[in-house]
């Protein structure tokens, strides 16, 4: 399938790193396509390479071999600045550790990616996004004062505020208890269904695996099931 019709495409991608004990292959010969508006869930044990794979797909890192296409752009040909530009306004992230700006309130955190991409009416859009995650009442609360679940909801609001084409989620429920984790997962998939955003989610939880349109299992840097 032509890369232009795909949200993300990986062709024989490998990632090797140098360690004190020599070279280590984290990813081996990965080929993978993700269509637009598809929800892909990647599961693997710790050390399987799933986070590395996510990073390559999002343009946060560069592969050692093979090609990675994101939104039609061959990331191998782009430098860090160019990859940043590709992401701006089009790619959203939800992290395991939330990674909110401490000392700022919920509204300001959601506004951040909008302002970085020079979007007009950033404040209004951010307020709307917070409404969608049910935190409009806590817009001016410092994120340091929010619970873990609330912080992750702010992170989700931030990710969806720019109406991204693709959302990358790295263990979004990893730091939450089971009940809160389910609520977060429900929220994320609900918003994704509403907006038609392509979703790539990395997890080690079986429950989340079943919610995706496609499931990918990884082990030792290789795809077991795609």
């Amino acid at each position: 399938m032509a890369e232009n019709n795909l949200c993300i495409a990986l062709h024989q991608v490998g990632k090797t790193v140098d360690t004190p004990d020599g070279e280590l292959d984290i990813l081996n010969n990965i080929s993978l396509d993700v269509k637009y508006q598809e929800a892909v869930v990647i599961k693997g044990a710790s050390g399987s390479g799933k986070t590395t794979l996510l990073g390559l797909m999002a343009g946060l890192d560069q592969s050692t071999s093979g090609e990675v296409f994101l939104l039609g752009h061959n990331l191998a040909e782009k430098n860090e600045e160019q990859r940043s530009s590709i992401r701006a306004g089009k790619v959203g992230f939800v992290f395991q550790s939330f990674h909110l700006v401490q000392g700022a309130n919920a509204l300001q955190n959601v506004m951040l990616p909008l302002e970085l991409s020079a979007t007009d009416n950033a404040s209004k859009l951010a307020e709307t996004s917070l409404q969608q995650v049910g935190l409009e009442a806590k817009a001016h609360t410092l994120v340091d004062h929010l619970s873990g679940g609330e912080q992750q909801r702010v992170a989700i609001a931030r990710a969806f505020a720019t109406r991204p084409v693709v959302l990358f989620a790295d263990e979004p429920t990893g730091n939450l208890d089971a009940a809160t984790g389910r609520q977060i997962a429900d929220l994320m998939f609900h918003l994704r269904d509403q907006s038609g955003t392509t979703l790539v989610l990395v997890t080690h939880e079986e429950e989340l695996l079943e919610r995706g349109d496609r499931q990918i299992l990884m082990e030792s840097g290789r795809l077991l099931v795609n």
Partner: protein
Amino acid sequence: MNLKNATIHSYWLMFIATVITVGIVTSSQLVTNRISLLLDRQASELLAADLVILSSKKFDAEYQAAAREQGLQVSQSVSLRTAVFIDDEPQLVELKAVDAAYPLRGKLERAHEVTAQRSYAEQGPSVGEVWLDSKLASIVGQDLTLGEQAFTASWLLTYEPDRGGAIFNLAPRVLMNIEDLAQTGLVVPGSRVRYRLMFAGDQADIASFKTWLAINLKPGEEVQDLENARPEMRRALESTRKFFALAIVLTLVIAMAAIAITARYTANREAPKIAMLRAFGISQLSLFKHYLGQLGRLWIAATIVGVILGWATQFPLQWALDGWFGKTLPQVYSLRPYLSAALVGLIALAGFSLPYLLNATATPPMQVLRTVVNRRSWSRGLLMTGSAIIAVFCVLVILMQSSLLAIAVLGIVLACAFILPLILGWMVKLLLVSSRRRFWLRQYLLSRLQASSRGAIYVMSGFSLVLIAILLIAVVKDELMGEWQAQLPDDIPNYFLINIRSDDVAGIEEFLRQRQIEASTPYALVRARMSQINGVDIDKIRFSHPRGSHSVTHTFNITYADELPEQNKIVAGSWLDENRDPMQFSVEEGMAERLGLTLGDQLMMTVGSKTLQASVTSIRSVLWENFKPNFYLIANKELIADMPQTWLLSALIKDRHKADLKQLLQRYPSVTLLDISELMARVKAIVDKATVALQFFFLFALAAASIVLLAAIQTGRHEREVESSLLRALGAHTSQLYRVHVLEFTLMGVLIGFFAAAIASIAGWAVSVYFFDIEYHFSASLWAYSLVSACLVLTLAGIMVSRRVYNVSPMKILRS
């Protein structure tokens, strides 16, 4: 589980901070000791010795024996008034006989004639020769008779180190060898002779001998050292010493700020490791003991390196200052600077880092599974605060050896340490409260400063303290230099005209006016001796002050003045008011203290065969350092109008008018011209050298501050990298990342610069007025300097940081 894994993170950071602390203390103690010694040595040249005993009687041998036992050099001189005959005309002279050791400090200068090249002489005249001062220049090269002995006047004496002290009592000087004195027959029973015994040696030996003298001194004998013999030097030296003490303390504050910042950072970085070790069953006590051992080894290593570094900094200083001073800085042979530095390093390290490490060892083991806030209990908080206070106090006491002063400085430092974080925190909050809707960029920057995880407020407080210390050093340095330069401007009078007859006063004033030579108001001088105080004969009074008995034989120069002289200040009573009482004395406060005088005391003075009596109606403070005519006693005009008197005035005689001096002396032969420019030049040179030393400390403080800045930059580096990778992940451009890091530091610079200037101004006022007893002048340039330097330095730091941080891979955000 092997505890070896529990090495201190950022070990090198704490090591460097401790090395700096030890190095600063070593260097500053060595440097100040050596500079202080040099300044004292230079100033002692004006005394021709380190210590002098004066007496009107010949000294027993015991003083010299005791001094030699202490390892001191000894010299003696004898002075008396006599006459020489020049062209069969008698000329009153001040004869001084000196031994081969004279002068013990400083050098004599001589020339063959007034306009000839001057040369130094290692010792005074040989047997059979005399040296004459400029008044007798016309007979240099000829023979003259002193008493029963003939001499050859072989040299013109152009400079005598200890002559300035008797500025108004000068007949022309004749210098001779003491071995010739007996042959002259001039010293007979009843002669008015002054004996001087001079001593020089190491500071410690002089101090020890002085203590022995205090017990063994006989009535009528007076001890003179630099500070009581040369009041014009006293304030300059005292101020310099106080400034050194202040500069050491403030420089140390900077170094301890570095230890505090790095200790906090290290403890925070160690917490995850500690949680892991505790999860594996290692007790808190075992961990603490282990870290204690680590700190002990760090202290030993840092002390060795710091002491060597501090010792080594003497050499660039010596190289820099030797050229200016023209001689080598004297060596200090003492272990005290090194031991003090080691002790200070230990106290600072223990005081600031142990409490943080103790808190870190209490990290809950649950931390390995999830982030658990290690809330500091109130007792632990108290321990940390108390430990820091005690550490700072102990360090100050060790260095300043005065617990009162240590408490005062501690108070200022603590006030800053507590107030600064509060003020800075409020300021940031205030700036955050804004109606602006945008978050990026300003609000984002302010939120970074406010985030407690970054500790930015503490770093800013630490750096503010550093800048305050530097500004305070600069403020005080400028005030001191300004005061010294105000006292010794280039246009103060360089000649005294003395022994002017009353009839000649108007003529001389006109002579000077016609040639546009600036001169002071003429002062009448009546030479008198004190005979009674409150009706009691002076020689029957036992004075409690050690120098009180000097007045028994001292001849006072009394003048009168309608108005209070410039740079005199009334400290008790009121200025002479003829309407109140026609007979009044105004007494200088030092003299009042020595003689135990108070307002209302009756003084009787003897002028030849006449007496005059008046009460003390005011006590004045006098600025002796201004080289203008100053007087211990001032009377109202009526009291001394009929007394035998001469006049004096001071004048600024520039080179182009020197030729007129000959004409003046020919027209008015009774006038004695006293050239004090040489003396002033030497005093000015000492003040200039002290200024160089002050500026050295300023540079030292700047160097130490830059290390603190580096430490501060390191703190929060990890957090900055994570933030940068987050911003990258969210699509920020390089230019946006660059701006955020640089502007964060610039914003810190603005806040730090503003508050440091405010606090330094207040502290500068307090220190100037209460510590140095000098006026404080508000300085707008201080504010400009503070803001510009803080912004510039921190912006440059921001550029340095941003270049390393914005290249961090955004993958870091996934890994963190």
